[in-house]
């Protein structure tokens, strides 16, 4: 798995080639973090999946991790060049919409559960309110 870079003024692009799996996902996470840290004021992150081989469950978990961090920092996340195999995996796991839905840059969307490990079984309504993009959660949520 070798990401290669192309950075615009406010966009970071990484082209992924090779397999994204248990052995390589840590490296991708590190590179993305480094790229986002370097380019202060990044508004968009593009992962080009055109050259991706197989993606295993840890690879998928890592894409979610990156998506989540980007959302937290108000960076728009884009998966480009999704091939049929990756698309099948995203659809099977019910996460295609979640990972490809456009999110406005610059607005930190909070799709975070409360910071506690023991997330209580909150009611769906309470969760959904907290999950709507648009500013910080009200205190105490």
């Amino acid at each position, binding site marked *: 798995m070798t990401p290669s870079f192309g950075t615009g003024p406010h966009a970071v692009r990484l082209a992924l080639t090779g397999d994204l799996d248990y052995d390589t996902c840590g490296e991708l996470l590190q590179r993305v973090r480094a790229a986002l840290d370097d380019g202060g004021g990044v508004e968009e992150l593009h992962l080009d999946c055109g050259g991706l081989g197989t993606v295993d469950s*840890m690879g998928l978990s890592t894409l979610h991790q990156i998506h989540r961090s980007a959302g937290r920092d108000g960076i728009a996340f884009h998966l480009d060049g999704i091939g049929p195999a990756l698309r099948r995996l995203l659809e099977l796991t019910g996460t295609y919409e979640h990972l490809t839905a456009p999110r406005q840059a610059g607005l930190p969307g909070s799709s975070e559960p409360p910071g506690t490990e023991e997330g209580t079984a909150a009611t769906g309504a309470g*969760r959904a309110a907290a999950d709507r993009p648009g500013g910080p959660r009200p205190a105490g949520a």
Partner: protein
Amino acid sequence: MTSSPARPRTGAVSTVSVASAPCPVVVLDADGLIAELNDAAGALLPAARLGQPLSSPAWLAAADRTRPVPVSGEVGDRSFSAQPSVLADGRTVWWLLDETAYRSTAAELAAERGRTRFLTEASTALLASLNLERCMEVTARLATEHLADAALVISPAAARTLPVVVCDHRRELSRSTVSEAPDSVPGLAEALRGFPPVPSRWIDPATAPDWLVPAGFGEVGSLVITPLPGLGVPAGALVLLRRAQQDAFSEAEESLAGLFAARAGAAMSAARLYAEQNSISDTLMRELLPPTLRQTEGVEFAGGYRASRDTERVGGDFYDVHPPGEDSPETLVVLGDVAGKGLEAAVLTGKIRNTLHALLPMADDHARMLRLVNNAMRTSHHTRFATLVMASVRREEREVALRLTSAGHPAPLIIRRDGTVEEADTGGTLIGVLPTITSRTARVRLAPGETCLLFTDGVTEARGGPLGDTMFGDQRLKRAAAECAGMPAEAVVERVQMVTSQWIGGGRHDDIAVLAITAPRGAHLSAVDGATRGRYTA
């Protein structure tokens, strides 16, 4: 007397006098008598007399006089080499060069090389095993071979007994446990605590308790206790014994023992940590023994599991069969797969299975149950997830009614009596990452002899075949399933496992779990067996 060593003729004749030479010089005539002797040689060889034969040092007296070559040897406690120059009249001038410093340096270098070789060998031998007992034995054996006449390795124990490995003076290894308080030996308790590091402790051999001295060892001359420093955990203590007739431990030997102890301690604590990890994994696994699934409530269940040979994999695939209870009229089957490996995956697996178990009373609404599990699983720390399939099973007359819900997991296959294979029309979101999830439940009826097959992607993603790297895939699985039409649940599971095993051959694979739910072909209800609940994970 002057002698002119051969040198390029430059016109000037330089002369060297024996008297002013900067080293001891002895001139012997052709008969071996001393013809000349400078002051330095006189001081070095007080017995030498002009006109007398040279008697000592013997190695110089015996040197060849006709065609002399450099010789060397001891004079008193110093080492010299003697370089000859032959004069025209047959006399030989012996220049004695003091080589004591050079030789002791060379000897030290050789000793240091020996020590380094020993430490390298020790490291190799110690790192060859992650078994604590084996590490202790290697430590004791190496210490006896290179450092002492006998050695004991004592490992710290929480209990009041000390595990001890002894390698005695006959190089024989024995293991024992000693019911002694460590403080019965001066310095042992500190060494076993390992922190703060204590220097090696010399002990008066007379005060050593009997258990420290191997049987038949004889009188102990010296005894030293060295802590085995671990990786943040004390790894134990090394006790070295030498017999009375042997030299005591020199400073160099003691520091070598310390270096050796550091390596042994590191290897032993690595082995100990590994053993702890293993026992944690074992504990987790023991919770989850493979269920012997059988008929329950007139439905056949069979499960099969083939663990990945990847040793770092604990966790991963799991399945549970929960028989009906007072709050849940149906049998609930759950089969799933947790992303990741090792302990973290095992913890996540435990968490999801226990949550599902607690939510059994809600099994009448799969979507709601999955939402609750998803809420319980989500954390801000990571995005590891699980995918799973739930099946609620109920016998109705001769048929079996199923409600099947997939949460991001490959859909179950329905194997009809006529050999057609359908995918259950279910799908949904994986568990543990997204704030809101959706799922679609499929309702399926199985006629007698028909089977619903649940499986993990270890089956479809198994790589092998004639080229060794082809995925087994959905189509091959469906073909294999079609061949199982009308078979009992056990046979379906065995057949699918056999086909995938053949496909994989000797290659690497992930965990593979399959579970069959079959409507019995027999016309009558079988004995109800709702008492056993099978749980299994990998």
